[in-house]
């Protein structure tokens, strides 16, 4: 039953991959969407039955078969549904369904072949993503982990004829692989340490171990895992692939590069919460990296001009938030933000897709503006999502973001909290910069778009009068997601606001394996450990309600300030940004060029490796030295041969001399040995 959830999309993939090119679009798209919806319904059913179980034993297991055995190492291909993965599969299948539906319209102008290919990839992605979250052990999760990477590769490179697309695809895969390198090492360490890869087994075993005050095995494992997560979830230093990944079709950006795949790192930390709690040092690193990524991406997002890139950096930034939460040990908060983010970011991406669709491929926001009246549905859904992400009270983003900031502050990391708030301001600012430049102000598309992108192979020129709003399937997805953006937060309304943090409570057992029996005595770490040992409801509710409320107020203010700032700068006083750009041209250029990180990576890693490999290893070492030695041995023998044969000079006397000399030598040996 459980296995059907991923297998349905897989079946869809098989059909579309083999026959997609020959089937009409309606069938392909319909089939792909149908399997997703079906999968979603199945997921709901499964979660429903899960919810019916008592909280301590909320698990549904399904072992398919024994996958790998080698000596004492044995691994099952097994699936497990628990509270955490329940949230994930709902998000994946739910938002996945919507995006499938959306895509049937969005991709409609592709050829049959490309259309089928697109949906087969998309289905395959969902299959792998579900495997990722349902896998009951690290390796099954790793299958999903790499599988989604593969689909991401395929989908980013969907327009494979474009060099930039295929470059971006390769970059995404390779950067992810760097993370996987660490993840793989972590896996090996896990086997060596726990002799198992099963999440539950590991968690139970880890529970018995002391929290590592100094850097120990678990810290190393978790650190390596986190490095893996930075690859998949686009954190410093491996975030560079995600903005480039926007070369893929927009629904892909929405599904993979916003809602699901990129959150796999967050999910993975949540999945291994027990381990991470035993490694406070790693948690600190996670938090710092998360906060730094959030800020860095936010600053870059501020100046980008490509509608999707802004959203991409926003995604990186929001992922940083999630990691900040995870680093605080507030796993529930991280997952909460993951969920809400899935809604509004998907909505934003799909909205941007609708914009691009309307403008026939134009992505530069400097060439948009005033679209509000042309595409109202898109506009409104987009704005709702933007408000949600900005953290305006009452919408999804507010609750989740606030919980994170609260937890951060609570754990005594005021600096990180400050970073979080600053990022929050930036988020509100760049989101509304985007909204204003896209939808408000004067219309700048028209002629400009005539020689704009032609990413989708559209032949006809856009014209204002021909602008049309999202067709029904797209509109449907947008509206549902917008509603989600508003409402999703209410599953986790904090106690301070009189809620019950239902999501937190639901997730609690999934993270509950902490060894609360053994209090940790060492210094400041005690705080974290004790904090987690206390049941969530009592933890913050009474003592910190006031604090939480005041922090909420701060962030609400910040959200509004950001929106206001954006309105001021990009709607009212457009001269200021331009002025600033010239005044601080250095900073502006730095931001515009994304801190030159790609260039630096290229210069200090990629190019040296290429040059060293080509000139040093291959043409130098391999050809000249190693092969040179081999051929040299051959030449040596031939050379000696040519010299020695000259002794054979044809003169009978020389030959006699040789015999004579031989005889004399033998006798000499006998008498002077």
């Amino acid at each position, binding site marked *: 039953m459980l296995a059907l959830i991923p297998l349905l999309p897989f079946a869809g993939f098989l059909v579309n991959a083999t026959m997609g090119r020959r089937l009409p679009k309606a069938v392909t798209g319909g089939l792909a969407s149908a399997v997703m919806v079906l999968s979603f319904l199945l997921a709901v059913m499964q979660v429903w039955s899960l919810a019916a179980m008592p909280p301590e034993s909320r698990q549904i297991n399904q072992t398919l078969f024994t996958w790998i055995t080698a000596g004492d190492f044995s691994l099952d291909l097994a699936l497990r549904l628990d509270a955490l993965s329940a949230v994930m599969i709902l998000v994946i299948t739910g938002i996945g369904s919507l995006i499938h539906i959306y895509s049937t319209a969005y991709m409609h102008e592709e050829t049959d072949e490309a259309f089928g290919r697109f949906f087969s990839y998309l289905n395959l992605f969902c299959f792998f993503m579900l495997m990722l979250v349902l896998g009951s052990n690290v390796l099954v999760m790793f299958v999903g982990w790499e599988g989604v990477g593969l689909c991401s590769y395929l989908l980013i490179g969907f327009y494979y004829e474009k060099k930039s697309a295929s470059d971006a695809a390769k970059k995404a895969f390779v950067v992810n692989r760097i993370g996987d390198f660490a993840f793989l090492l972590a896996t090996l360490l896990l086997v060596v340490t726990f002799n198992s890869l099963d999440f539950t087994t590991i968690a139970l075993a880890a529970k018995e171990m002391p929290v590592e005050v100094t850097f120990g095995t678990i810290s190393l494992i978790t650190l390596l895992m986190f490095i893996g997560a930075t690859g998949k979830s686009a954190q410093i230093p491996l975030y560079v692939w995600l903005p480039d990944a926007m070369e893929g079709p927009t629904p892909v950006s929405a599904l993979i590069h916003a809602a699901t795949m990129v959150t796999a790192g967050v999910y993975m930390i949540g999945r291994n919460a027990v381990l991470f709690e035993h490694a406070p040092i790693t948690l600190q690193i996670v938090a710092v990296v998360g906060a730094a990524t959030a800020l860095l991406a936010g600053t870059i997002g501020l100046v980008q001009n490509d509608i999707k890139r802004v959203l991409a950096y926003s995604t990186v930034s929001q992922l940083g938030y999630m990691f900040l939460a995870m680093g605080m040990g507030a796993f529930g908060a991280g997952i909460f933000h993951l969920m809400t983010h899935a809604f509004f970011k998907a909505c934003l991406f799909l909205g941007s897709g609708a914009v691009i669709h309307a403008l026939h491929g134009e992505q530069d926001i400097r060439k948009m503006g005033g679209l509000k009246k042309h595409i109202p549905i898109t506009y409104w859904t987009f704005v709702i999502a933007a408000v949600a992400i900005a953290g305006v009270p009452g919408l999804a983003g507010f609750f989740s973001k606030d919980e994170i900031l609260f937890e951060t502050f609570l754990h005594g990391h005021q600096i990180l909290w400050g970073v979080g708030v600053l990022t929050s301001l930036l988020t509100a600012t760049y989101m509304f910069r985007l909204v204003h430049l896209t939808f408000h102000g004067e219309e700048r598309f028209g002629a400009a778009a005539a020689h704009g992108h032609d990413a989708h192979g559209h032949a006809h020129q856009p014209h204002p009068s021909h602008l049309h709003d999202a067709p029904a399937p797209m509109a449907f997805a947008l509206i549902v997601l917008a509603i989600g953006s508003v409402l999703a937060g209410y599953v986790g309304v904090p106690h301070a606001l009189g809620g019950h943090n239902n999501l937190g409570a639901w997730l609690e057992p999934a993270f509950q394996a902490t060894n609360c029996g053994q209090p940790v005595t060492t210094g400041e770490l005690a705080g974290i450990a004790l904090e987690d040992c206390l049941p969530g409801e009592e933890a913050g509710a009474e003592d910190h309600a006031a604090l939480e409320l005041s922090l909420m107020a701060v962030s609400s203010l910040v959200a509004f300030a950001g929106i206001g700032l954006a309105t001021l700068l990009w709607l009212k006083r457009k001269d200021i940004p331009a002025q600033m750009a010239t005044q601080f041209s250095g900073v502006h250029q730095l931001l515009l060029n994304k801190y030159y990180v790609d260039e630096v990576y290229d210069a200090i890693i990629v190019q040296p490796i290429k040059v060293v490999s080509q000139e040093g290893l291959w043409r130098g070492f391999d050809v000249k030295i190693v092969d040179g030695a081999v051929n040299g041995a051959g030449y040596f023998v031939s050379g000696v041969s040519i010299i020695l044969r000259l002794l054979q000079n044809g003169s009978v006397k020389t030959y006699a001399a040789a015999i*004579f000399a031989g005889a004399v030598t033998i006798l000499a040996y006998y008498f002077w040995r």
Partner: protein
Amino acid sequence: MGSDALLFYIFAGAAVLGALLVVTQKNPVYSVLALIASFFGLSGLYVLLEAPFVAVVQIIIYAGAIMVLFLFTVMLLNVPREDAAEWDRAHPLYRPMAVRIGGALAILLALELGWALSRTAGLGGGVADEHPAVSSVAELGRVLFTDYMFAFEVTSILIIVAMVGAVVLAKKREE
């Protein structure tokens, strides 16, 4: 020094001198004649060694027959002088080397032989000290046709081969 010793040195001197002349003469005719002289010296030594039949055979067969064959060939070919042909100089590797090396090796070989002999015990005694000489032709013949019967027969094959071979190699062939 007894008369034996004197005779030994005379004959030995003749043999060595003859041999030296053989290898130093440029004219092969002289070489052949010097070799015959050397053979006479050897023949004398055989007499000293109480092997008169060998001494006679040495003169009759060796000096008389084999050397005449050589002489005959030399006359037939009629090349009294060594020719320093152009191909001589064409071999920078060879010319001076082989002579020098050959000479040096010969001296080395002589030294080695001498050194070896000098270290061998029991060579100091007279040749004739231990056993009486067996020099009768009858005894010689008896041993030759009993113990060396087979070897004797083998030489017949050897001679046939040599004969047929010499004919095959040298006779004018009808084409």
